[in-house]
């Protein structure tokens, strides 16, 4: 994994056409307010303002005056400070790269930038990101499967999860189980239930025999 590489591996012919803003420890500081994650980042000024009439959130104080941040002094040419009180994180590859390629969006769901890897941040900032991702992508791990009953196209599951026993229902079982391969070659499963909840089996082979037999049919 190349960490903190400034020129990412983009084919030469595509380079320079579209700019991706990467956020890392050098240009971005995370903040926390009211239970939400925010940031202050130094990013490129948008060049095409007509097609992208981007209005970075301007924070005003009680008197309606624009708040001045010390980072704004001595900004290099073409750069600007973006301050967002609340950001949204979105995994680009939630199933196979949960720690990499994380899009950072502002409150209007417009992209501020990309985090190529969580390792581009130091503690405690990395943990703040991890917690935010864990919270958004709430995915309890299944430790043991007690029963799987299939009826009329629905399957009813009873499992022992990381956070206690859980019962849930899948519609169209085959399509609700997403397979992904771990770096070590073992198989990881994501299970999507009718309520939109997700469950995870980090390594299918590591399941006990009884549990494995119950889902073998769907693999």
């Amino acid at each position, binding site marked *: 994994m190349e960490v903190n590489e400034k020129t990412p591996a983009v084919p030469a012919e595509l380079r320079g056409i579209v700019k991706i803003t990467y956020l890392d420890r050098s240009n971005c500081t995370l903040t926390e*307010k*009211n*239970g*939400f994650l925010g940031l202050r980042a130094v990013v490129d000024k948008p060049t095409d303002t*007509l*097609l992208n*009439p981007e209005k970075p959130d301007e924070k005003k104080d009680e008197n309606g005056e624009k708040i001045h941040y010390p980072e704004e002094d001595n900004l290099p040419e073409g750069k600007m400070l973006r301050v967002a*009180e*609340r950001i*949204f994180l979105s995994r680009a590859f*939630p199933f196979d790269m949960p720690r990499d390629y994380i899009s950072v969006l502002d*409150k209007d769901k417009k992209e501020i930038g990309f985090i190529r890897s969580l390792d581009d941040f130091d503690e*405690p900032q990395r*943990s703040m990101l*991890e*917690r935010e991702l*864990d*919270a*958004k*992508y*709430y*995915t309890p791990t299944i430790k043991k499967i007690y029963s799987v009953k299939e*009826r*009329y*196209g*629905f399957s009813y599951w009873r499992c022992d999860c990381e*956070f*206690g026993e859980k019962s849930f*229902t899948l*519609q169209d079982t*085959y399509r609700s189980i997403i397979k992904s391969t771990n770096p070590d070659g073992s198989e990881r499963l994501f299970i999507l239930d*009718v*309520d*939109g*909840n*997700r469950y995870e089996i980090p390594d299918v082979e590591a399941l006990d025999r009884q549990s494995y037999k119950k889902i*073998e*049919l769907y693999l």
Partner: protein
Amino acid sequence: MESIQTQAELEEKLAAERLERKKEQMWQRLHSVDPSLSPDGIITIFDFTLSDHVTAENKLDQRVDGLCALTKEALLVYENGKRTKEIKLSEADEFKITAGVGSVTADCILNGSDYLICRSDSSRTAEYAAVMKRINKFKKTGEFSFDYMKDLTRFCEKCGRPLPPGSSVCPHCVDKKGVMKRLWQIALPYKWYLAVSVVLFFAITGVNLLTPYINRILVDDFIKTESPESVLLWQFALVIISLAAVHIVSQLFGIVRSRVLVITSNKVIVKLREMVFSKIQQMSISRISKRTAGELMNRVNGDTSQIQNFITGLMPDLVQQSLILISVSVMLFVYDWRLALLILFPAPLVAMSFKYFWGFIHPLYGRSWNIYSKSNTILHDIFSGIRVVKAFGMEKRESDRFDEVSQEYRDITIRNERIWATIWPWLNFFMGIGEFFLLFYVGNRIIGGTMTLGEMSQFSAYVGMIYGPLRWVANLPRRLVQFTTSTAKVFEIIDEKIDVPDREDAKTIAIKGTIDVENVAFGYDESTDVLKNVNLHIEPGEMIGIVGKSGVGKSTLINLLMRMYDIGEGSIKVDGIDIRDLSQDCLRSQIGVVLQETFLFAGTIYDNIAYAKPTATRDEIITAAKIAGAHEFIMKLPDAYNTKVGEKGHTLSGGERQRISIARALLHNPRILILDEATASLDTETERQIQESLQKLIKDRTTLAIAHRLSTLRNATRLIVLDKGTVAEVGTHDELMRKRGIYYGLVMAQRQMSKMAPKNSAKVS
């Protein structure tokens, strides 16, 4: 009709009771957490399951037992029995939800900043969305409605399990007897046919029982007779002939029975299919789009044919085999009860071993079925995307992919067949083990002289007859499950409630074309509002252009006007009458639509244009085609208006298809014309021509046009700019340009684009 009414009333009553119970339950929970609150001050209570507790290892332990209570002044948040937050309603604003992935967050704006109220897993999404909406309304009006609690998670009345989404039938509690009863009701008009077949069943069983008896006479009196010289040829011939006659009669009865059953089952199935199909036609788009086309096809065709298979195949077998089983058993017991016991004792063992065997083999076959369907999917994919495959030169890779799955399928099939081939003979042997005991017993008796050879042959035949049904019965549960599943699915569709129903006193009017949209809010699901607070007044004869970025709700607005969905809040009125009070027929027959994605039915161009008005004369059709700019290219086709289009038909370009569908809408002669990106696939020149002819046509009609290419809308009397789900700007082109708002931005962006276009193309060429 009356029973349905009472059924609905009953359901309503039960729902109300459930609501009370739920409220009571929540109140108890709150009381145990915070006894200081008085029940009168509480507006509503909801719970949550997740929180951001950071553990000592700096990790997130998300579990929490949380409760939120809304009072007149504040929203109180309790976590694990302690009050952690108190959000004053006077300071908070805009309560809303943020949907995560597997989680949902309720938040609000407190003193200008986003503020977290609580988090939960996804199952609460709809509830939070509804509650947050109601809190906003409560702040404004002081009203709070609990109606949302009813529909949150609909539970089965009997078992309390949550119902599958989009279905009103609990898969656990499908009353199987009830299903059979209803099927019987549908079959009732054909009861005489059924009676005939039942009589035939008895007749066939009786005739079949005769054969072994005649066999016995044949053996004892003729073949193994003690005085062969006394046998008369004609008697012998008579026995043979009667044996043949029994066979023929049995076959004849069988033929008649099958015919009667096929006729009956087809009549029943056609009726069922009609019921399912007309129900699907009545369902709203939202219901239909919840199911895939394949699934609907399966309900109409697949599941009904399962039922048909049952009536023609399984049911007769079931009746026949059980009749044989019973009558042969009785006969055997009457002849010799010891013999009968010997024959029947392995039966339970066999049935049990079969059941075990199925539990073992079923997953194996399930797996092979799975891989088979996977290989089919790959094939379907490759063939429908053959142009892409060829264009990127991926033939080799695709055939490798298919090979791989085929090999996997081959391996599994070989393995399954091997297992089957090894187990089956043994199973068969054990099933027939009673025959050996029988042989021993009967042999002894023959040697002892208490039984004749003919009797033995008769017995053996009966034993054979009894083991057939026994083997068959072992398979029965699996087949019955298939049938009841299909039947339940079919009735599920038939029983489904129509969610955009016509009112009983729905009006039919001649529409003039005034449209009023008042405070409309709508979302495809509770959690996200696509449109909010939309207000519009459109005079008859106006041409309104609707502009805005992709995804702001332009097409949604059109869908609502056509009442493809019922709106959540507010009202849409046509000529001052709420569209919910109009019959859908009346409304849609006077609205003409041209959509961006044009759909041509399989048929000729003529059929397609005449679709909305089958009585149209040829002149009308040609006129409509001319206005739509379609006539010219149609006449260049060798078969002109008789050219076959649609699937397997002549390939038309996107622009040509669009012009045909414009002609279709024009022929409809609607009072309200809707053009949803209707001219998007046309070149500017053709578009201008069509615009000009349309201009004459739409003079006294209300027209709503959506277009990204803003030049399309230059003739519009007014433009409506949608942004973030609401009306941001209204006015003529000039007014909006002067305003320098969103519309101005869009126009400038397009101008820049068109300036850039020639430069770019020059570079390319």
